[in-house]
């Protein structure tokens, strides 16, 4: 609700949302002469009040990015996307397929021009519900990328989002298996068929603790939707086995031949007379195709091993449709089932979760806030779980204020760049995001490129690098002096360079010119080195899709010496 407050001193009225003064009312109304509001004045007042409210509503910032995520500017030359499922008749069932999310809760990276995110995915489901289509959803697995404390929080957040959206089954990919059987079991519901239960983890050929009747993972799930019965199972393929299972190890998770296991499960599902048989295949495409040939009774296979951005064309192997849905949650696949169409009972569309057709969903966004809050509340556990170690150079990070003592001109250039504001931007977001931004100052995945002394490729921290305030302890300067993208992220930690330069100035007997010059060379960065090896560590495709080195270099280029 827009608030209107009265400004006592000037007698005007300000609209809080836009800070415009749209009326000036004299302290003493002169029209009636007795201090009361005259009828015409009152009518005008009310009319303009309504107009102001309306204008404020139009002018205030809203959730959702602009077309290119910026205020003004041009977008890439692309035609507008076609409406989703354009011209499709209502099916008996629509199955939403996804997989290999790899931890991308939000559109791939932080850039507003990228696709994906669970918030938009939830809106896709809302749109399908608005069409009154019977819908169910299954995921191939590969929900997160790592096995850290943060990864578990993310896994649980995704599980909650999936429960809310309506997912019913999730396969087990390498990423899930690395989380460990104990953890996966604890995330499963004791009563899987109860209303509001999270999706079941399923696998036909993975056994936990050598106990096939453990119940986790389930061998399959039968989903009743739209009056139809969908039998869903999953396999972990031989083609991926070596990525996870160490030869000779006796781990908690046992891999069994997928063909034998699948045969048993398919027999069971056939006895239950399901209308559709769906396989989630965590396998290379070649192996998935072999499974399609070996088990022609399968109607649909969602396979791993496809490209990050698939072409959206399903493969038909006999009567089995084989599809992939890409990586990082940029797309989902929708398969519509038309049992009365003997020729084409299944129809597939790969849907790009773009910002033109899909909007954010408040409930999912709120859960993102809760996730960031959890990272903050348990910052100690999260940060201690981030791998750390000494920098290979042996030097320590000192901060830009130390560099500034000698490199005042370079500092002056740096201060004008967005690099200097990198930490602040984690608090406030971009201009178009401010009203919906969720602070990320305790998210290691974001800190890695927005502070000093972290390795963005490994998402790890150097011992002398930035630390969040509550954990900086005896070294508060690691919080206060290492915020933002500073010199040492490109030039390397400077402590040794500073020591030698200081020594050279104060007592040349304690070092040599050769040593001093060698270290200067070590911290020097040429334009070529920057282009090949430095900038792209953070300005990668996901987080900086419009990165143009030649253009950006002009903003940051600086001489070393004053």
């Amino acid at each position, binding site marked *: 609700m827009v608030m209107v407050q009265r400004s006592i001193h000037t007698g005007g009225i300000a609209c809080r949302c836009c800070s415009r003064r749209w009326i000036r009312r004299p302290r003493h109304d002169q029209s009636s002469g007795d201090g009361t509001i005259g009828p015409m004045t009152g009518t005008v007042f009310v009319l303009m009040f*309504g107009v102001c409210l*309306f204008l404020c*509503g139009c002018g205030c910032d809203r959730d959702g990015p602009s077309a290119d995520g910026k205020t003004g500017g041009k977008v890439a*030359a*692309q035609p507008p996307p076609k409406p989703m499922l354009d011209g499709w008749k209502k099916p008996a069932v629509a199955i939403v397929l996804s997989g290999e999310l790899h931890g991308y809760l939000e559109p791939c990276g932080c850039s507003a021009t990228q696709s994906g995110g669970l918030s938009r995915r939830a809106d896709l489901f809302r749109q399908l519900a608005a069409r009154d289509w019977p819908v169910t959803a299954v995921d191939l697995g590969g929900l997160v990328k790592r096995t850290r404390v943060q990864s578990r929080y993310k896994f649980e957040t995704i599980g909650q989002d999936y429960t809310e959206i309506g997912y019913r089954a999730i396969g087990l990919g390498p990423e899930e298996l690395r989380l460990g059987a104990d953890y996966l079991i604890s995330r499963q519901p004791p009563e899987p068929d109860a209303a509001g239960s999270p999706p079941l983890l399923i696998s036909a050929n993975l056994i936990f603790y050598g106990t096939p009747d453990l119940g986790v993972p389930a061998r399959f799930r039968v989903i009743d939707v739209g009056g139809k019965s969908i039998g869903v199972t999953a396999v972990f393929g031989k083609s991926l086995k070596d990525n996870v299972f160490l030869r*000779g190890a006796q781990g908690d998770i046992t891999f069994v031949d997928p063909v034998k296991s699948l045969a048993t499960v398919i027999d069971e599902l056939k006895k239950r007379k399901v209308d559709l048989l769906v396989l989630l295949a965590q396998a290379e495409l070649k192996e998935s195709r072999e499974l399609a040939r070996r088990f022609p009774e399968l109607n649909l296979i969602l396979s791993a091993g496809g*490209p990050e951005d698939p072409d959206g064309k399903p493969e038909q192997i006999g009567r089995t449709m084989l599809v992939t849905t890409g990586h990082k949650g940029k797309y989902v696949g929708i398969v519509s089932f038309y049992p009365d169409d003997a020729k084409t009972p299944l129809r597939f569309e790969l849907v790009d979760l773009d910002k033109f057709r899909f*909007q954010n969903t408040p409930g999912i966004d709120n859960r993102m806030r809760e996730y960031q809050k959890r990272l903050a509340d348990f910052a100690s556990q999260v940060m201690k779980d981030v791998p750390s170690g000494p920098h290979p150079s042996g030097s320590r990070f000192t901060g830009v204020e130390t560099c500034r003592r000698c490199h005042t001109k370079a500092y002056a250039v740096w201060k004008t760049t967005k690099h200097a504001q990198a930490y602040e931007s984690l608090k406030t977001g971009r201009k178009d995001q401010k009203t919906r931004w969720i602070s990320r100052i305790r998210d290691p995945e974001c800190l890695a490129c927005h502070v000093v002394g972290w390795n963005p490729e490994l998402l*790890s921290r150097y011992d002398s690098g930035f630390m969040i305030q509550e954990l900086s302890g005896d070294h508060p300067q690691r919080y206060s002096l290492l915020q933002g993208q500073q010199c040492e992220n490109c030039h390397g930690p400077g402590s040794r360079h500073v020591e030698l330069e200081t020594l050279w100035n104060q007592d040349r007997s304690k070092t040599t010119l050769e040593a001093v010059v060698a270290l200067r060379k070590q911290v020097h960065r040429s334009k070529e080195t920057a282009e090949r090896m430095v900038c792209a560590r953070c300005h990668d495709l996901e987080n900086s899709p419009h990165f143009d080195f030649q253009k950006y270099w002009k903003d940051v280029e600086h001489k070393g010496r004053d």
Partner: protein
Amino acid sequence: MKTGTMVAAVLAGLVALVCTVLVARQNGSLSVQKPAMKQTKEVKDHPKIAPHGPYPKAVFDESVFDFGAMQFGTRKSHTFVIRNNGKVPLEIRDGGSTCSCTVGKLTDGAVPPGESVKIEVSWKPYAPDDHFRQAAIVWTNDPEHKEINFAVTGTVEKIASIIPDRAWDVGLIADGKPVTVTGRIYSRLLDEFNVLEVSSGNPHIKGEAIKFNAKELTGLNAKSGWTIKATVLPGIPVGRLNATLTIKTDIKNQATETVAGEIAPTADASRNASYTLAVTGYRPGPMRIVPTAGITWNAVRSTIGLGSFRHEEGRTAKLFVYIGGLQGKQRIKVLGTECDLQFLDVQLDTKNVVSVGNQQRYLLTIRIPPGKLRMSRTGSDPVKVVLKTNHPELPVITLNIIFVSL
């Protein structure tokens, strides 16, 4: 106030009210569907297709180029050719690309009948990818080829890859027996490289490297590679193993950050690449508890989490308990039970026992009957359960139970 004025004021008030409601809906938290966002910025047009023939005819020998394998961080390019076999000019326009890592060099224009135009596509992947596929898009006025995707596909490789590529979990480490596990390090880019040393900071872990034979190379489609053997020797303490294994190689122009748990090279021309892996495992004591769905088990604190439930419904949890150290048909017996919560029932089923290797599997049932008090027993104040047994190594089993009964 006159009637007419009153009516005008009321009408104005209604207008204000409507405006307020509209604004509140737009700015509030109601889940009203907002219109899909329009693309308001300028958009390049496709070339116009003539309403009737003759039409140009775009012909191309290839639209997908498989580049095989390339190293990530490097750039490659390939030239596609479109020929116009029609009788009127073929208009072509740059339609962008599927990702900014792929660029098509094309000048918008018209290709006369019988002539060709080259389209140079270059790409520089930003990450390793087993299934790299991106395309440059060309728009034409050939109605049969309004949009042509010239795609490049292949694998984008790290200079060397290790499988498994994360922490190596050796799993169960039985008493007195070494465990040997093998992984592999290989390259699809280097014709040859050497493993100089495989070492660990843990004295109970020994490593060695064996060069690939021809079959192993073929199996991974690799140019060079080594099998890495890690042996965990007897003598590690009961509990979790957390160690590291470092593989030093002579691969130049890469250097790893030796951060335990994950492997990645960073660029440093002067150093040989070395890769550090986390090595984990588990040496069990005589007992191991395995949780079931929805139950958590913390082995360090011997804590079983029953989660939250409604007090009217109660909660029954079943867990598997694996017991070792018993001979032949000997079974564990519970000689006595102590519990500081009177109505919490703990039963170890000693009749329906399953043999699993050299261990026995028992079912432990923990039950809170329905209709008991609402309460919260958390980590600082768990329910303590003590089971006295006849097991020579487990005379007492102590469990902490935590839950929230709402």
